Each structure stands twice: as C-alpha cells, then as structure tokens.
C-alpha cells in the first residue's frame, strides 16, 4: 500500500511536470506575441518619429516664412505710409514753389514800381551834376531816366549821362544797377526786333515802360529758374548716391550668388541683384533727363541775361 502511494505520488509529479511544461509553452507564446507587438509599436514609433521630424522641419520653415511675411507686411504698410507722406510733402513743395515765385515777383515788382515812381517824380526837376567827370552841369533839368542813363536838357540840347558816370548818391537815389541795365538792354533789343517785325512805331517812354515790365518778369523768371536749377542739382546728387548704393548692393548680391554656385549651394541672390541693377539703371536714366532739363534751364537763363 505504501509502495502504491509513492508510485501514485510519482505519477502525479510527472503529470504535474507535464502540465507545467504545457503552461510554460503557452507563456512562451504570450511572450512571442508581446515581442511581436513591441516590434510593431517600435516600427510605428520610428515612422511617427520620422514624420514628426519632417513636419517639424516644415513647421520651422513655415515659421521662418511667416516671420518674413510679417516683416513684408510691416514693410508694405510702412511703404504705403511713406508713399502717402511723400505725396503730401510733394504737394506742399508744389504749393511752396508757387508761393516762392509769387514772393519773388512781389519783390521785383515792388522794386521796379519804386524805381519807376522815383524816376517819374524826378522828371522835370532840376539837378546838380557838377560832380560828374569831365562835365559841369549845374541846375540842369531832368528830361528822362532810363535804367541806362539820366537824360538832361542842356542849353546845347538834350544829353544822356550814363549811370556809371553819376555820383554814387544819384545812382542810389534813382536805383541804378548793372543787373537792371543789362536786362534793360536785352528787353529793349527784343522790343525793337518785335517792333520792326510788326512795323510799329513806339515812342521812347512807351518803350521804356514795356522794357521795365518785361525785365521785372525776366528777373522773377530768372530767380525761379535759378531756384529750379538748385533744386534739381540737389536732386541729381541724391539720385546719384541712390544709384551708387543700388549698384553696390547689386554687385554684392552677384558675388554672393557666384560664391554659392561655386560651393554648389542653391542661392536666390541673382534676382535681387538684377532688380537692384534695373532700379539703378532707371535712376541713371532719370538723372540724364534731369541733367538735360538743367542744361535747358541754364540756356534759358542765358537767353534772359543775354545782352544784345
């Protein structure tokens, strides 16, 4: 009985051992499944990580672009603001140019009015010209005053005394000046040519009056043209600096482009360089046109000042 019991226990042990083996095999399957699952998760993780990396790069690039876009929007807004401010300033400049022309005309008109008045009042009065070089004209009557001379009535007949020979006191009193004399000569010459063309006869006083009106206008026109020349010259200088700056930028970008090409890198400075160069060329053309205008203005001033 004792023997049988031990045998039974032994058999039970063997059976138990077999059950454990079977269980162990089942566990081994579970482990295999787990390992497969881990492999699959790891694979997915690698995929997700790689996609995440790509998307993060894309995001970084887009963020950079967004920053550039924001800067572009800001620059565009600033550009519009500066453009409208420039428009306003240009309008003001235009208005001021007209006001300046009017102010200069006011001055020349007043000066000529004063000259005409003082000379008209002096007509018929007596004057002592004893200090005039090489002449003894005492108590002589003034018959007419032009920007060139003082005409007096002498017992021997009418005589013109050039203003340059008059004493300073009289020159100052009748407002003689070289500038006026030159302009007057030119105005008279023009009037005479016009008169000859129209075959008209004009008396000396009328001629004088017309010449004075013309020289007032001429003086204002010259002042205006001189102001225009000064302004355009300043503009030309500023534009030349601008063109030089753009050309330098263009050269710099071209060098960057060439260096990048040599290193085998893709770089987009070429279009910038072309744009800057095109802008510089446009400015150079505008400068040439402005220089032509300045030459034309100088020629016109020369014509106005020309003494025939």
């Amino acid at each position: 009985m004792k023997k049988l019991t031990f045998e039974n226990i032994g058999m039970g042990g063997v059976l138990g051992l077999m059950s454990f083996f079977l269980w162990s095999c089942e566990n081994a399957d579970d482990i295999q499944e787990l390992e497969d699952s881990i492999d699959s998760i790891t694979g997915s993780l690698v995929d997700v990580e790689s996609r995440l990396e790509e998307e993060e790069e894309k995001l970084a690039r887009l963020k950079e672009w967004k920053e550039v876009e924001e800067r572009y929007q800001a620059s565009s807004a600033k550009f519009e603001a500066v453009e409208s401010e420039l428009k306003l300033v240009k309008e003001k400049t235009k208005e001021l140019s007209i006001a300046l022309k009017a102010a200069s005309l006011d001055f020349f008109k007043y000066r000529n009015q004063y000259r005409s008045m003082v000379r008209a009042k002096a007509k018929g009065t007596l004057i002592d010209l004893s200090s005039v070089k090489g002449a003894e004209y005492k108590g002589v009557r003034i018959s007419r005053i032009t920007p060139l001379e003082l005409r007096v009535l002498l017992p021997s007949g009418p005589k013109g005394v050039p203003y340059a020979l008059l004493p300073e006191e009289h020159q100052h009193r009748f407002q003689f000046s070289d500038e006026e004399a030159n302009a007057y000569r030119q105005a008279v010459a023009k009037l005479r040519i016009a008169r000859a063309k129209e075959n008209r006869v004009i008396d000396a006083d009328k001629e004088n009056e017309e010449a004075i009106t013309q020289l007032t206008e001429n003086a204002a026109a010259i002042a205006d043209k001189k102001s225009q020349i000064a302004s355009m010259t300043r503009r030309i200088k500023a534009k030349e600096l601008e063109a030089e700056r753009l050309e330098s930028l263009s050269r710099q970008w071209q060098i960057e482009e060439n260096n990048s090409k040599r290193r085998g890198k893709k770089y987009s400075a070429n279009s910038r360089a072309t744009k800057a160069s095109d802008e510089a060329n446009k400015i150079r053309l505008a400068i040439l046109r402005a220089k032509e205008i300045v030459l034309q203005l100088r020629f016109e001033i020369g014509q106005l000042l020309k003494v025939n």
Partner: protein
Amino acid sequence: MKKMIIPFLCLGIAVMGLSSCREKEKELEAKESKLGEELDQKRKKLNEVVRSVDELETEDYSEKLVEVNLKLDALTRGLEFEKTELEKLSAEKRGFMKRLEDYRKKYSMGED
C-alpha cells in the same frame, strides 16, 4: 523514496522556469505599455505639429521683402530729400519776403 526525488526536482525546475517566464512576460508587458504610451504621445505631438503646419499655411516672401525694402529705402530717402527741399524753399521764400520788407522799409513808396 529515491524515485520521488527526480520528479520533484523536475517540478521545482519547472516552477522556477515558469516564474522566470512570468517575470519576462511582465517586463515585456511593461515595455509594450511604455512604448504604446510613447507612441501615443508622439502621435499626439505629430497631430499638433500637422495642425500648426495647416494653420501656418503661407508662402516664401523673401524676394518680395527684398524688393519692397529696396523701394522703401529709396522712398524714405526721397521723402527725407523732399522734406529738406521743402525747408530750403521755405527759407528761400522767407528770404524774398524779408528782402521785400527791408526794401519797403528802406524805399517806401510814400517818400521820395
């Protein structure tokens, strides 16, 4: 009695082997769970990044920026220049007005 030693020894070894298997299984389960969590987090992050990319849809303005900055520079200089011109013209106008005023004072039409 001797016959009993071997089966019990085998039983002992099997119990130890099984226990080791259970430990490995637990370890693997923990690893799987950790990796699963990590994968979830990465997916969540990926979704966030993709959403951000979609929201940030834009284009490259670099060239346009260079162009607008070039123009802005030129325009700003132009504006500065026009302002200076305005001041100069204003000074010129004041100069003529002053000349007229001085001339009027010196050579009044009311006097000879």
